[in-house]
């Protein structure tokens, strides 16, 4: 299936994620949407009480990408999760694109 067609088959949580997928497709970069959740905290019984699911995984670069298009006040919580993920899973690379970064990309490519 062509990349652009694949985009239409996925229910993205946010419009910005769909746009990012199209952007990756244009550059022929393979991607997976929310492919894995990383447990971050457990209760005494070993049940997962907190986890983090990065938005994208780019296998070619072995890189997880998280888009944060939310308010700055909510970004702090996400930053804490990403810090925790890096502590627990240092073998994985994760890049966070903040709202400001993402606006730049959209502006750069004519979305705004």
């Amino acid at each position, binding site marked *: 299936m062509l990349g652009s067609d694949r985009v239409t088959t996925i229910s993205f949580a946010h419009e910005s994620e769909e746009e990012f997928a199209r952007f990756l*497709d244009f550059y022929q970069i393979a991607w997976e949407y929310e492919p894995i959740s990383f447990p971050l905290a457990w209760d005494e019984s070993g049940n997962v009480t907190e986890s983090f699911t990065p938005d994208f995984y780019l296998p070619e670069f072995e890189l997880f990408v998280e888009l944060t298009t939310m308010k700055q006040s909510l970004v702090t919580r996400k930053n804490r999760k990403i810090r925790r993920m890096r502590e627990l899973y240092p073998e994985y690379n994760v890049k966070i694109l903040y709202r400001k970064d993402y606006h730049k990309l959209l502006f750069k490519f004519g979305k*705004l």
Partner: protein
Amino acid sequence: MMSHSSSCQSSKLPNVVKQVILDEATISQTVERLAHQIQQDYQGLDLLLIGVLQGARPFCMDLQRAIGPSSKLDWIGISRYRHLSGSRKVEIVRNTRTSLKDRHVLLVEDIVDTGLTLNYLIQELKKRKPASIYVCTLLDRPRLRLAQIPVRYVGKDVSEDFLIGYGLDYRDRYRDLPYIATMNFESLSIGGGEEQVRDQQSGNESYEQNPAHR
């Protein structure tokens, strides 16, 4: 490297300039420094500089001049992603006219951010069997990097502010400024117009280069 700054309040600068981050002298010093490094690294080798159109044109020409006649120069252009329009996949729209086989290729860019453009170009050019392929960029924004690309020479790391001048444009304008400056979007809002709407939508100072217009 020394950095010079000037305010847009200077009468010598156009209103569209907010702050000069690389003046002519600093650009010249940066080009000389990079050229010297490249001369050292490629001594005795068949070096081919490939400038990525359009933005890298002035930098690439100055760089080759500083390196000297031991290097050759060619150009390449690719399509850029446009939301809801344009081609669906990146492609080369202006190809090189020189054989790359067994030559040492140095891709020359004005600015690198996500690295996706160069990632594509490197993959394509590798098919032509160069002896080596690396990247030289005048400006770098490593914080936005997604693709790991072999950026071997960097003139200066810069912030995410929108830059104009020395090849960098805003809607194909201001490339001819002899320095590199952050852009004063407020100057475009005088009299209203589309620029003002864009400016308000995105929080005023948070824009990045528009290489689609390079």
